[in-house]
């Protein structure tokens, strides 16, 4: 593939497939594969040449390709409640099928016909509750099911701003401990030079990511916020490696070019701009996008992609610890409301749509309270809808359409 001439979309697809391939070859060569929470500090693992796989991204992909139900059926059989996060259930179902395949050599039909990206079982796992404590429970189960080491970075909930020094110190000591664990697991001394390089690369990737986000401020907007969700995968899987920076720079360049040439996401039809608060409804992504498009509503704000804005000083672990702790959903209500206000302002949004996500308590339980604060601060209306990030059964297209329509009417009345 000619990297220079490829579009950002091609680069995104190429790198996603390449990383899965890398994980498979690592496995074949007897090198380590790690499954990791999406916002856990992967810089240490890159330093030790461990291939990373991200179950949340993997589950989202299965959901978007309409393959979730088969995996959910496996976890139903295993006794998982249907009230549990569907990312976790899809992944634990996939893990179960892979485990059975490894044990018997026979691929279950659900695995053989699954549209899931083909990734290998992990040799170790990395989790962090800077997103949610669900990630602790989920990874506990992976660790015990697969009998493999679990490296945990506990990011204490920030109940009072700013992040206390002792909290940062606790995280730094966990990073130190994780390094020792990695030395034990790999049998090699930790590579501090590569660790620093991964931190520096992360900063360069974050710069390009922020450059992409800056186009949400253009009115009309050259970027559709749903694309922002898609490219987020690069920040998850590769922020510590050069390819994420290259692909995101290409995306930002394309957006710059489009803005210059008057090529906007909705052409001349951008009638309103909305915040999408929460994770996408992956199995119904196209429906949600079209429903908004029918109203001329472009999504230009979401706090979700902003979670990957890991700004810190390379070489300074205290600053890295703070950055990994200060995730939007790991902070008190006031801080959340401030962040959402900034996102809505940057996106020049006229209204807000809140996903009451059956799978995600941490992103849903404070939606109403956050909505009220931001709505009052900015004087913009909001609507909510019921959905789920990967369980297709917890979403009603008709309810979504009605809510989007009523939000558009509220916006129009203003």
């Amino acid at each position, binding site marked *: 593939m000619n990297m220079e001439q490829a579009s950002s979309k091609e680069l995104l697809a190429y790198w996603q497939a390449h990383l899965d391939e890398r994980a498979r070859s690592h496995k074949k060569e007897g090198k380590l594969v790690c499954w990791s929470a999406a916002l856990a500090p992967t810089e240490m693992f890159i330093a030790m040449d461990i291939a990373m796989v991200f179950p949340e991204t993997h589950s989202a992909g299965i959901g978007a390709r309409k393959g979730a139900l088969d995996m959910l059926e496996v976890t139903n059989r295993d006794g998982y*409640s249907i009230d549990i996060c569907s990312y976790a259930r899809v992944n634990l179902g996939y893990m179960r099928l892979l485990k059975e395949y490894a044990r018997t050599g026979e691929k279950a039909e659900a695995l053989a016909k699954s549209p899931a990206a083909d990734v290998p079982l992990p040799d170790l796992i990395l989790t962090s509750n800077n997103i949610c404590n*669900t990630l602790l429970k989920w990874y506990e189960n992976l660790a015990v099911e697969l009998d493999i080491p679990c490296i945990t970075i506990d990011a204490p909930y920030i109940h009072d701003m700013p992040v206390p020094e002792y*909290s940062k110190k606790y995280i730094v000591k966990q990073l130190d401990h994780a390094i020792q664990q990695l030395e034990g697991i790999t049998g090699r001394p930790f590579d501090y030079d590569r660790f620093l390089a991964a931190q520096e690369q992360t900063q360069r990737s974050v710069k390009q990511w922020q450059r992409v986000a800056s186009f949400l401020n253009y009115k009309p907007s050259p970027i559709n916020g749903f694309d922002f969700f898609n490219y987020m995968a690069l920040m998850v899987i590769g922020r510590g490696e050069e390819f994420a920076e290259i692909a995101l720079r290409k995306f930002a360049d394309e957006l710059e070019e489009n803005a210059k040439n008057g090529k906007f996401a909705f052409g001349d039809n951008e009638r309103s701009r909305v915040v999408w608060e929460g994770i996408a409804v992956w199995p119904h992504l196209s429906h949600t996008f079209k429903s908004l498009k029918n109203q001329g509503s472009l999504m230009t704000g979401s706090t979700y992609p902003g979670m990957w804005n890991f700004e810190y000083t390379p070489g300074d672990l205290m600053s890295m610890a703070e950055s990994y702790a200060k995730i939007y959903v790991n902070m008190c209500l006031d801080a959340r409301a401030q962040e959402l206000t900034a996102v809505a302002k940057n996106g020049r949004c006229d209204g807000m749509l809140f996903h009451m996500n059956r799978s995600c*308590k941490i992103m849903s339980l404070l939606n109403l309270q956050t909505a009220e604060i931001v709505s009052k601060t900015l004087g913009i209306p909001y609507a909510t809808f019921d959905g789920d990030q990967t369980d297709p059964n917890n979403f009603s297209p008709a309810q979504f359409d009605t809510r989007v329509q009523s939000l558009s009417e509220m916006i129009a009345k203003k």
Partner: protein
Amino acid sequence: MSRIDDIITQFQTVTANPKAAVEQYKKETGKGAVGILYLYGPEEIVHAAGCLPVGMWGGNKTISDARAHLVPFTCSIMQSVMELECQGTYDILDAVLISVPCDTLKSMSQIWKGKAPPITFVHPQNRNLAAANEFLVEEYGFVKRRLEEILGENIPDEAIERSIDIYNENRKAMREFCEITADYPGIIDPVKRHAVIKARFFMEKSKHTALVKQLIAEIRKQPMTPWNGKKIILTGIMAEPLGLLEIFRNNGFAIVADDLAQESRQFRHDVPAGRTPLHRLARWWQELEGCPLAMDPGKARGQMLIDLASRYEADGVVVCMMKFCDPEEFDYPIYYPQLKKAGIKNTTIEIDLEEKSFEQARTRIQTFAEVIH
């Protein structure tokens, strides 16, 4: 009325009307009361300030006002707590400690509706590390300072040490009580057992200990008679409303041990020795085992249940599954096959604090009685 009945009635009076118990404490001592929102909190610090630590475990109430603040998939106990917050039930308290070991509690800490000032703190989850102890000492220090500000009381280390001793003595008495309950199921039925344990949350602990010790002494005077009913172990967050325990009692079940957050998980291990009282309290959290709210990649809970069942020769385990509690729901698929492999019969009942009729639970429990017969 026998002396045993008399003591049990005292516990039941407290649990039937916690508000009266709190008011009486305030009147008698001139000191305040501090709520411990659910699960685990450093009660000893509150006790050392002379205040009554009050457990907040919801109630058997219809949910109405809480619906305006919570999504329908919030766990049953937090819906119940929110309802009580909205109704002003907790306004008798002078402060409330909120720990946030799950995603729902993180959110609940941000939307407290009561009048008493909330103090939110974090239990660290990377629990084996010395750094977790240091972090929790700092968090408890924060809790102590906030309490001192709110209550206008200085809380010296010596007072906390004394309170730890009082609490450890209570824990020991409670373990002994649970043991004796297993030996005398004909005297202490599931409803009475629960009242003795739950009263801990509304009584000053040395008073509670004294009464529990009297009860133990009275029970010991009775002859041990063979038990012809079924012996079970409960696991989960809690086994309420009371109607559920009545079904166990009426169907000839004895609870010979429990693994409930509201019951034995509170007192099955002591606060250990340590450098300062706050270090000691922090160690207690690090040594807590088998609770889904305290991270454990080794998942000890299944083996713990198997050991309990064998030690008490239980006929089975009843899983009391708190509705919409994902930490509990995540543990189940791990320990269920372990129980099955060990040949331990088990069943699951849903815990919904709003429930009034218990038809489903009754059928489940009656069926289980036949299965383990």
